[in-house]
Structures are given as C-alpha cells and as structure tokens.
C-alpha cells in the first residue's frame, strides 16, 4: 500500500506547493518594483545618493598636499606617480607631477588613509568610462606648485581653510588607531 499512498501524496504535495508558490508570485504583482531607473529617470543624481565613505574615482586637492609621498608608498599597485623637488636655497618643496592611473587603480582606499591633510580622497564619482587609456591618467598638476606647509594652529588662509576642513573631515572618518576616544564621537 505504501506505493499507492506515496503516489497520491506526491500529487497532493505537487498541487499544494505549486499553489503556495503561485500565491507568493501573485502577492508580488501588487508590490512596488525595486528598479532604480539609472541613468535618466532618476529623481536626484545617483552620485549624490551615495554614502560619504563611497570609494569612487580619486581626487587630489593640491592646495593642501604636503608632498609627503605617503600615498605613493601605500598604493600596492604603484599607480600614483609624484615628482617633487626641494629647492635647496629657498627650502620650498615644489610638486612638479602628480599623476594617478585610474585604469590601474582598484579603489582600495589605502592611499587616502595615511594622507595627513586628506588632500587625496575618494569622490562619489564612478562614471570613469573613457575612449583611450591615456585619457584615464588623471594629471592633477597644471604647473609646478609649492607644497602646503601645515600650520600649528587652525588654518588662517580663507582660501585653503574650507578645503582643509573638508580634508580633515575625510581623514577623521578613518578609525584612529588605539586611541581610547571612540572614533564615532569625533565624526558626529
């Protein structure tokens, strides 16, 4: 008798589970779709909806770059190339070349971590498609510029102060190693 019972049980199982499955899909007919209609039918630009820590294409604020080459050393792929000379007479450090090869960059964020002033940071821009590999190299230096000298107290120069505060906000987002103050308190 086992086989006959199994036979009808199979039929009952099939009908019951198909019935359940159809009920689930029926309930989906009246639910709101999740599709975000990027790129054109968007209420607000996608880049603005991304979180603050989003690691998009790199950007460098040369005004607050101290030329310390920490990011060049930290990058595992060596896609950051910085050339700067120290003028022995005037003791001024000028940055002649600051290029980042976005084609090789893997957006890992290791370069923006050691930067003292937060000049190299990730933007929420991700549309980096381009027509040639050369144009994927972002050159940030138009003409050689003097490196920024971090001052002891708060920054006075009105032009640089907002850039520095934005940079420091980005750097403070990273967890400060080993300090007893919880990092969360600082960013709030």
């Amino acid at each position: 008798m086992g086989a006959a019972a199994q036979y009808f049980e199979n039929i009952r199982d099939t009908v019951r589970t198909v019935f359940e499955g159809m009920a689930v899909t029926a309930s989906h007919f009246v639910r709101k779709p999740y599709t975000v209609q990027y790129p054109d039918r968007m209420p607000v630009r996608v880049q603005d909806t991304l979180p603050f820590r989003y690691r998009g294409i790199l950007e460098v604020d040369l005004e607050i770059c101290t030329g310390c080459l920490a990011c060049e050393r930290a990058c595992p792929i060596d896609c950051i190339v910085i050339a700067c000379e120290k003028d022995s007479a005037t003791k001024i450090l000028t940055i002649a070349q600051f290029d980042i090869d976005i084609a090789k960059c893997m957006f890992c964020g290791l370069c923006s971590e050691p930067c003292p002033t937060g000049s190299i940071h990730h933007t929420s821009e991700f549309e980096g498609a381009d027509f040639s590999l050369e144009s994927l190299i972002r050159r940030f230096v138009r003409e050689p510029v003097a490196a920024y000298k971090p001052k002891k107290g708060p920054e006075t120069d009105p032009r640089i102060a907002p850039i520095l505060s934005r940079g420091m906000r980005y750097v403070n987002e990273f967890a400060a190693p080993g300090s007893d103050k919880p990092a969360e308190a600082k960013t709030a």
Partner: protein
Amino acid sequence: MEPLKIYERVKERFGERVLEIADKKPDPFCVIDPKSIVEVCQFLHDDPETSIDALSNESGVDYEDRIEVVYHLFSYRHRHTAVLKVKLPRENPSVATLENIWKSANWMEREIFDLVGVNFEGHSDLRRILMPEDWEGHPLRKDFVEPLEYHGISTVRESPIIRLDAGKK
C-alpha cells in the same frame, strides 16, 4: 592533545626518522624524513589516540636552499592539529603521495606540483591544475622569471605614466 605531545608520540614510535621537533612560537612543527612520511601519516591516521582524519592544508614553500612541503593535519574527534614538514632538495624534489590516506591530498598535491614543482610518486593523475598544460617553469619558486609572452600574448604592460624626475629617485 597538544601538538608537541603528538610529536613526542611520533618520535618515540619512529625514532630517528623524525628529524627535528621545532617548538617555534605561533605553530610548533615536526620535520619528518621524506621517505617515511607515508608510514607516519598512516600511523597518525589509524592511532585512536591521535586519529587524524583530515589533511586540512598542504602547501609547498620554496626556501632558497630547499623546498619544504608542509602538512597541516587535523582531527575532528579530538579537535587538535599537527604540522608535519618534509625538506626536499631543490633540483627534482619528490615525495610519496598521501592520496591513499586522505583523498583531499589529490588536488592539493596537484597544485603543489603545478606551482612549486614537487613530484609526488604514486599520485593518481599528476598533471598541472592551475597553469596551462604547456607552461614551463613553476611560478611560486623564488627564482621563477615570468616569460615575456605566452603564445604571442605579451604578459607585460609598462605604466603609461612617464615619471618626470626618473633620474633622481
């Protein structure tokens, strides 16, 4: 059972074929003579005291003067681990396969043969697993030089950025 106690058992069982018991800090290990690795592992597998029933990890390491095959053994019943090592010459290193004791050795040994170049005698189908069949050389050896091109495909891409102060750095 502590790893060191396992090595003591193996030492008193196999005597001089256990070359060295190193009590290094994070993971102590025990070096075995390559010719008797199968008996040691069979003993560890069958002995109810240790009953190692899984070869958790097997890796080939190339130290400039020798090649070591490291076996991480594990017992699910007693929850203890043991690390055995075998030192092999660099020219054509070869050691007996452990496939008959633990089936998981099959693929791991094929990977070591492919990447580090250790020949495993008695292995059921010893052929390259990760690299293409006609690849020469063993990539994970320290003296491995990557060929500039493979079947006409260049394996090198210089960085398109020209460094201005190339000379100074």
